[in-house]
């Protein structure tokens, strides 16, 4: 029996050391799946970029169910993968339990704060990016009325709305910002029909630029905006291509940069809260061949100037989540 234990122990040590020697980074995608044309795909692109530049590989897994979260995390940690990057706030609780068990492994979680010594929590200053697209909206609007359509009514989406409204008012203090939330349940993220109706309602109230921060619901918003010949603004990833010439811009959340940074840092990953804002390329607005006609040089200059001011700290955009209120609306 003791012999058996020794053998097992030796085998385990061997396996562990072999795993540790690899120390490949690992990436865990959330339930949306790797090619979701949004959040997870951006994470994948960042990892892919890192792997191509360094000629190394990384481990990855697409979750199929909630129950796999902890399992996947532990598998990678036991395997010696370091750092382990995961996308999405839904990992918060699980990581809080798992991280203390593997003090030598570094974890990076995106869009959530987990307080543990070996975890990097990446959060985005969505209000800053929304401020920039709000400025563009106000400059592109002819009626002086712009719209915002949020998904589920949660503080995070109010943060988008508040940043947007501040950007609009910065350009045109007399502008009206119509704000609507699609609903109060998770179904609000996937209801393009309601998104369309909200857009029509906002158009009839005079809005001629509509910003959608609503997941799948936003597809309906962008579609209706294009059908009714007004401008729309996409969110998270670059959605300009969806209706070329009719999407003013997209508020970009550079999840790819966050993943790239984490993987580039390797096992020496700096832990703690990592804020991705306008200053370090974490958020921004999209400019490509699809909307080049819509964004004039003057508009671009004004927004870039504001971005510089935000980066240097001369301009502060109020964060709704800091005190659950918005100075403008």
């Amino acid at each position, binding site marked *: 029996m003791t012999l058996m234990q020794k053998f097992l122990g030796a085998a385990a040590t061997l396996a562990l050391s072999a795993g540790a020697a690899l120390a490949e980074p690992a990436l865990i995608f959330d339930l*949306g*799946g790797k*090619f*979701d*044309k*949004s959040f997870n*795909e951006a994470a994948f692109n960042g990892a892919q970029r890192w792997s191509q530049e360094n000629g190394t590989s990384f481990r990855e897994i697409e979750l199929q169910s909630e129950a796999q979260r902890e399992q996947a995390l532990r598998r990678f940690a036991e395997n010696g993968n370091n750092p382990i990057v995961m996308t999405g706030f839904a990992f918060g609780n699980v990581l809080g339990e798992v991280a203390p068990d593997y003090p030598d492994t570094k974890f990076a979680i995106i869009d959530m704060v987990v307080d543990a010594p070996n975890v990097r929590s990446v959060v985005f200053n969505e209000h800053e990016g929304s401020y920039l697209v709000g400025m563009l909206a106000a400059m592109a609007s002819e009626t002086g009325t712009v719209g915002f359509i949020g998904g589920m009514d949660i503080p995070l989406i109010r943060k988008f709305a508040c940043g947007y409204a501040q950007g609009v008012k910065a350009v045109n203090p007399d502008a009206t910002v119509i*704000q*609507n*939330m699609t*609903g*109060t349940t998770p*179904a*609000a993220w*996937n*209801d*393009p*029909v*309601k998104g*369309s*109706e*909200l857009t*029509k*309602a906002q158009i*009839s109230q005079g809005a001629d630029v509509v910003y959608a921060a609503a997941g*799948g619901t936003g*597809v*309906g918003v962008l*579609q209706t905006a294009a*059908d009714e010949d007004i401008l729309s603004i996409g969110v998270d990833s670059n959605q300009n291509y*969806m*209706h070329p010439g009719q999407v003013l811009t997209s508020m970009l959340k550079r999840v790819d940069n966050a993943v790239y940074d984490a993987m580039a840092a390797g096992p020496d990953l700096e832990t703690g809260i990592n804020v991705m804002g306008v200053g370090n390329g974490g958020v921004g607005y999209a400019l490509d061949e699809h909307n080049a006609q819509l964004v004039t040089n003057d508009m671009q200059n004004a927004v870039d100037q504001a971005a510089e001011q935000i980066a240097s700290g001369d301009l502060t955009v109020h964060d709704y989540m800091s005190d659950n209120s918005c100075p403008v609306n």
Partner: protein
Amino acid sequence: MDFLTLLQVLDSTVRLATPLLLACLAGLFSERAGIFDIGLEGKMLASAFFAAATAALTGSVWLGLLAGIASSMVLSAIHGLASITFRGNQLISGVAINFLAAGMTVLIAQDWFAQGGRTPSLMSGGRFEDITLPLAGTLAPVPIIGPIYAELISGHSILVYVAFLCVPATWWVLFRTRFGLRLRAVGEAPEAVDTAGVSVIGLRFAAVGICGLLCGLAGAYLATGLQAGFVKDMTAGRGYIALAALIFAKWRPWYALWACLLFGLLQAVALRYQNIDLGGIVIPVQFMDALPYILTVVILAGFVGKAIPPRAGGEPYVKER
């Protein structure tokens, strides 16, 4: 609220009520024949996906519509097989269909189009365009009636008119034909129908088939009429609201029309006005969203007349041995 705003809200009501109405009539046929159908949601979702996917691949909205109806009827056949032929529990079978549709649509969409469970946006030939009824332009300047005709009645996609025509058609089929009489009888007293020498199983399968057809129309309308493509879980609970409307309507076609229009109106008002200020009292938008369900519970509790479901509903028919 001025007249134009009122028209816009009513216009929105018509669009939002149409999928509810089709799904509600679908449930009506099924439940009148004694087959409870929780799976309206799943059938609409499957139809929405296959309608959008086929329209995207072939560029023809009509082929999309056919594919949508076919997929919905396949799910209906599964429901029928489980609950009629094998006498399984109808609620469980319905729930299973919802899960099957929710998972299958996203999986196939990802495999075919690799766009995160979406279909590509449909171009003009792949969508049901709004049709302008004759004389809409000439009548528009006429006060009151003109705008109502031009804005509210004209300018919807063809499926909207089909849905509204389905109401009298359903009434006629159920209450004025031999088939309808037997169908209703099979939901109340299947043994009587059996004694008369009419096939209970055949009638129930026919009802479930009609249910699949109507759900198919509803799903296709969502994906190719209201929207230009499929998005995962895009039915967003409309199948359940349709069930609520069915109970609210006490399983009657004309009542179903009014129930669906009422629920559509509630949604339209909630979308137009986030918080309604009624002279001091502010009604939050959440209350408006919940109102269809609250009304249904009130009806079920028997406060406003009693809603009596078909007597043999939910029970598989077993011939006496």
